[in-house]
């Protein structure tokens, strides 16, 4: 058996396959489908300080091969999360990464401080980049100074690893990556969704209530891969690749480009076993190609 372990800062994952925030609920939604402990890690739906209802419908639309969403981060709030969601998450034998977002910058360290007293959480992913909330959202990771300060403030709030999740909707993602690295992030994850839009010709209305929305799925893969590659070339902390990953080949492409781990997102919706199939696929690939350890693949791009 090849060694599939990877390290994100001092967070050890048994394999590089994790699942993207907002596409895997709080893991319990997938527990019936497969043994969750086979995954490298689980990233929760975004948790905010106060409970949120989310956006009005329609929240989702299917496009050619991909989808738009503007869910608006509905969640039970950090206290509800601790009492309602953590008990199940704590039973898992895989790494639990809690994705958090603040309406304003100060809420990020505040939520992290509250969660820091809770057992069974292995790291935080900071959602700097949701395009679907009026407050803050995108702006946290579209500006390097803001992103750096925010990261530094969270860094002070916890010793657990922090992963800054970056938006792709910027001129230079590596500038933001460098900023959060300077701010003390242990890793970055990239990318969140792209700002996209679709129109229903019959009604002349946008297909999503908030007009623009987040675009995800296989169609974003080539752009996401280029962003991840750019980050891997320019920053020193690990990069977790996200964006349209639906197959073992997709996942391996991100690893070859330099990503230390990956997240499966939209694919979970139509194939709830997509993530575990990729774990199996990577295992098989390593066996067939006599790859002793997955780190031999990471960044092995032949250029």
């Amino acid at each position, binding site marked *: 058996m090849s060694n599939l372990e990877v390290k994100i800062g001092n967070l050890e994952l048994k394999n590089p396959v994790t699942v993207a925030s*907002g*596409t*895997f*609920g709080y893991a319990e*939604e*997938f527990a*019936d*489908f497969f043994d969750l402990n086979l995954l490298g890690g689980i990233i929760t*739906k975004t948790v905010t300080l106060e*409970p949120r*209802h*989310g956006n*009005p*419908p*329609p*929240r*989702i*639309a*299917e*496009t*050619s*091969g*991909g*989808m738009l*969403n503007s*869910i608006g981060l*509905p969640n039970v709030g950090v206290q509800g999360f601790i009492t309602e969601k953590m008990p199940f998450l704590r039973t898992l034998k895989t790494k639990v990464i809690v994705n958090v977002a603040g309406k304003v910058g100060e809420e990020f360290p505040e939520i992290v401080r509250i969660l820091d007293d809770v057992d069974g959480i292995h790291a935080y992913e900071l959602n700097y980049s949701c395009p679907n909330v009026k407050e803050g959202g995108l702006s946290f990771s579209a500006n390097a100074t803001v992103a750096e300060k925010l990261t530094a403030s969270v860094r002070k709030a916890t010793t657990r690893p922090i992963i800054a999740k970056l938006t792709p909707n910027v001129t230079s993602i590596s500038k933001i990556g460098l900023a959060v690295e300077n701010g003390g992030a242990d890793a970055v994850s990239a990318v969140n969704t792209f700002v996209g839009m679709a129109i229903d010709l019959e009604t002349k209305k946008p297909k999503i209530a908030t007009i623009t929305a987040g675009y995800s*799925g*296989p169609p974003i893969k080539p752009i996401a891969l280029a962003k991840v590659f750019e980050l891997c070339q320019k920053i020193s902390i690990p990069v977790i690749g996200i964006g349209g990953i639906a197959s073992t080949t997709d996942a391996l492409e991100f690893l070859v480009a330099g990503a230390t781990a990956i997240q499966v997102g*939209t694919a*979970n*919706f*139509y*194939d*709830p*076993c997509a993530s575990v199939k990729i774990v199996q696929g990577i295992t098989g690939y390593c066996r067939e190609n006599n790859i002793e350890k997955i780190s031999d693949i990471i960044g092995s791009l032949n250029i």
Partner: protein
Amino acid sequence: MKDKKRAIAVPIQSFNKITDEIYSITLYDQLIAGHAHSGQFINVLVPRANDILWRRPFGIHRINADTGTFDIVFKVVGRGTKALTTIKTGDKLDIIGPLGNHFTCPPDINEAIMVAGGLGIAPFPLFIQDTGNKNIQYTLFYGTKSKNQFCSLDFFNTTVDNRFLATEDGSFGAKGFITDSLERYLKGLTAKDGKYIYVCGPTPLLARVKQLAHRFNIRAQVSVETMMACGFGACMGCPVPLEKPAKDGRKYLLACKDGPVFNMEDIVFDE
């Protein structure tokens, strides 16, 4: 029933065009055939043509516990349902299900007034199968655009007590909306105790039935349709707005997980 969720490839026992643009599929799955209830649905991975991303949800139409099979009926409305017509008997279909909650009968029910628009007919045969052991009078209101859009009329011939059919173009049954027939019927009702409306169909029909149920003060359950990226509570893409916040404070419920069946009075139709 709290089902364990499963993604499973089930054999296609038969696949038939039953009428204009409407098809039925018989699938072999003992669990669903043995346990599913009316209103529940399956989420189908359609053949990966035409750049389709999501599964497509279809209500469980009818079950045959003896053969371990169940039926879905669907209408071709877009690229997913079009791709679905390329399946073949003998192939397997990748489904997730049974999903969602189901219609329920209160103990005091004496008449089930079923209202279906178009493919909204889907849950009603199973509804009758589900509840047929009770002492209920079944009244069916079933409207479509045109004559060649009805399905499962044979089934209802032998199972319902009263049947009202309507077509928008007047090619069969009454001309006009089925809710007009319903309104006349409700007007004529003397006693309302024990009457219960069950409805499934396009949103304008649901909104109209909601008004009628309110006006005539008859309880109603509704099976709603929304866009669904997952069907099992993971994407939060299928919110159904509530008239007033739920006990836990929620402004929206999820069609796939908390529904697709809701008490009519609880939810808002955006029309």
